[in-house]
C-alpha cells in the first residue's frame, strides 16, 4: 500500500515538472509553428543563472529564483529576435523549407548556449538553493517538502497561464492565434505582437520550470539535449499544438517512468516511455489529442 502511495506522490511531482516544461514548448509550437530545439538550453540557462546568483552574488533563494526566471525570459526573447524572427521573415528561404531551417538554427543556438554555459560555469551539475526544506509525511510516505512545493508551483503557474489565456484579452488573442492566425489578423490584432507575447510567456514558463528543476533535481550543461528531447517527446505524444494533450502526456510519461523505476528497475527507467512513444506514433500518428 505504501508503494502505491509512493508511486502516486513521486510520479505526481516529476510529472508536474514535465508538464510545466512541455507546456511552454507546446504553446510556442501551437501559436507560431516553431519547434524550438533550444528549449533545453534555455532551461539550463535559467538554472545556472539562479545557481550563480546564489553561489557568487550570495543572494537569497527567492532572489536567486527570480534571477533565474528573468534570465529564462530574456533568453527566450533573444532566441525569438535573434534566430526565429529573421528566419521567418527571410525572403531567401522558401516557405516550405523554413521549418527545417528553424529546426537547424535553434538546434545550433541551443548548442552554442550549452557551450557558453560550460565555458563560464563548467559542465558540473548545479542545483538551485531550495526555497523550502524538510520533509512531511503524506499517507505514510515521507515526502520532501520541496517535492510538494514543486508540484504546487507547477500547477499554480499552469493555472495562471490558463487564466491568462482564457480570461484576459491579450491571452485570448494568443489562444486565438494558435487556432487561426489569419483570423486574428482580420480582427485587427497584430500577429507580430502576439508572437512577442507568446515568446515572453514561454520565457517565464521556461524560467520557472528551469528553476524548479534546478531545485528539485539539478541540471548540468549536458542536460540540454535530454531536456529538449523529453519536451519534444511529450509534446508529440500529446499531439502537436495541443497544450492539454501535452499535460496528459507529461503525466503518462512521468508515471510510466516512476512505475518502471519502482516495479522493474531504475536501470530501465526511460525505456518503456520511449517504446510507448514509438507505439503511439504507429497507432495514432497524430498523438493523443493531436489536431494537425
Amino acid at each position, binding site marked *: 500500500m505504501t508503494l502505491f502511495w509512493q508511486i502516486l506522490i513521486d510520479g505526481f511531482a516529476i510529472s508536474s515538472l514535465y508538464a510545466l516544461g512541455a507546456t511552454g514548448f507546446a504553446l510556442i509550437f501551437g501559436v507560431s509553428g516553431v*519547434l524550438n530545439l533550444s528549449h533545453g538550453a534555455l532551461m539550463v540557462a535559467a538554472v545556472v543563472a539562479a545557481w550563480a546568483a546564489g553561489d557568487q552574488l550570495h543572494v537569497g533563494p527567492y532572489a536567486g529564483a527570480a534571477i533565474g526566471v528573468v534570465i529564462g525570459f530574456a533568453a527566450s526573447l533573444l532566441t525569438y529576435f535573434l*534566430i526565429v524572427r*529573421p*528566419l521567418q521573415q*527571410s525572403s*531567401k*528561404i522558401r516557405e516550405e*523549407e523554413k*521549418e*527545417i*531551417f528553424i*529546426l*537547424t*538554427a535553434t*538546434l*545550433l*543556438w541551443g*548548442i*552554442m548556449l550549452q*557551450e*557558453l554555459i*560550460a*565555458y563560464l560555469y563548467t559542465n558540473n551539475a548545479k542545483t538551485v538553493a531550495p526555497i523550502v526544506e524538510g520533509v512531511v509525511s503524506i499517507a505514510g510516505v515521507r515526502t520532501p517538502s520541496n517535492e510538494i512545493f514543486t508540484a504546487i508551483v507547477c500547477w499554480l503557474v499552469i493555472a495562471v497561464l490558463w487564466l491568462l489565456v482564457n480570461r484576459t484579452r491579450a491571452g485570448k488573442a494568443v489562444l486565438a492565434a494558435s487556432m487561426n492566425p489569419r483570423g486574428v489578423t482580420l480582427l485587427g490584432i497584430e500577429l507580430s505582437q502576439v508572437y512577442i507575447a507568446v515568446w515572453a510567456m514561454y520565457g517565464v514558463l521556461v524560467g520557472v520550470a528551469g528553476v524548479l528543476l534546478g531545485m528539485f533535481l539539478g541540471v548540468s550543461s549536458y542536460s540540454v*539535449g535530454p531536456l529538449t*528531447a523529453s519536451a*519534444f*517527446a511529450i509534446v*508529440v505524444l500529446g499531439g*502537436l499544438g495541443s497544450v492539454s494533450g501535452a499535460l496528459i502526456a507529461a503525466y503518462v510519461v512521468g508515471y510510466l517512468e516512476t512505475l518502471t523505476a519502482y516495479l522493474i528497475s531504475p*536501470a*530501465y527507467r*526511460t*525505456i518503456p516511455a*520511449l*517504446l510507448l*512513444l*514509438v507505439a503511439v*506514433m*504507429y497507432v495514432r*500518428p*497524430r*498523438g493523443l489529442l493531436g489536431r494537425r
Partner: protein
Amino acid sequence: MRSASTTRVLLIALAVVIVVSFLPLGVSGYILGLLTIAYYFGVFAMAWDLLFGFAGEVNFGPTFLIGTGAYTAGILDNLYQPPIWLCVAAGALAAVAGGVVLALPALRVRGPYFGLTTLVAVLILQNYVVVDAPLTGGEIGLTIPDVITISDAANYEIALWFMAVSGAVLFALSRSPVGLILQASGQDAVQAGALGFNVTKHKLAAFIISAFFSGLAGALMAFYLSSASVGTFIDITVGVQIIIAAVIGGRRTILGAVLGAIFLIAMSELLRPLGDLSNFVVFAMALVVVLLFPGGFFGLLTRSKEHG
C-alpha cells in the same frame, strides 16, 4: 547533355580526389588522421542528404544507422574474429535492416512526427548499448581487437577512396532517373503517384541506400578507430554534427555535404588554440551560414544567375 555534365562533375571530383590522394607524401599522420575522420563524416552527411534533400525525410537519427553498422561490425569482431570484410559487410547489412525499420514509420507519419520517431530510435539504441554492457561494452565503449591496417597513409587512402566511391554512387544516383523520381516523390508524393511512380518503393529504396552507406562508413570507421562508443557513433550530438555538416555544405547537393563535414572538422582543429571556446565559435559560424547563406557552401560556390 545533362548527363554529360554529371559525368563532368564526377571527372572534376575524381581529379580532386587523385590530387588529394597524394597528400600522404607531404603531410603528417595527424593531418591524415584528421581527414580520415572527416571523409567518413562526409559519407555520413552525404547519406543523410540523400534522405533529406531528395526523399524529403527529416531524419534526426542518422546515428541510429551509423551506430548499428559500427556496433554490429565491432561486436562480431569481438565475439568471433571473422575476416574483417565480413564484419564490415555484416555492419552494412544490419544498418540496412535498421533503415527498413526506420522507413516503416516514415511511410505513415510525416514532418516533426517522423523526426521524433527517428530521435527515439537513437535514444533506444543508446539505452540498449548502455544496458547490454557485456555485449556492447556499455557506456565506456567497445574495444575492437582487429584492425585493417595501422598505417596512417593506408587508412587515409581507404577513407578517401571509400568516400570517393560512395560520393560518386550517391551523386550519380541523385542525378539518375531514380534520383529524379525520388526528388519528385519527396516534393509532391501525390503528383509522383499520379505520374505512375510507386512512392513507397522509391522512399524505401532511399532509406536502404542511405542506411547501407551509413552502416558501411560506420563499420569502417569503427575498425579505423579500433573502438566504438556511444559518444563517437550514437550520441545525438554526433547526429547533430552530421545534419549541420549537410546543411551548411548545401542541401540537395550530395557533394556539398563533404565540404560541410571537412569544414566542421577542420575548423574545430584550427580553432583548437581557443580551447574551451572553440566549439562555441564553430557552431556560431555554422549558425551564421544557416541564417545568411541558406544555400550553404556548395550553393555559394555554384550559384548561377537563375537564383540571382
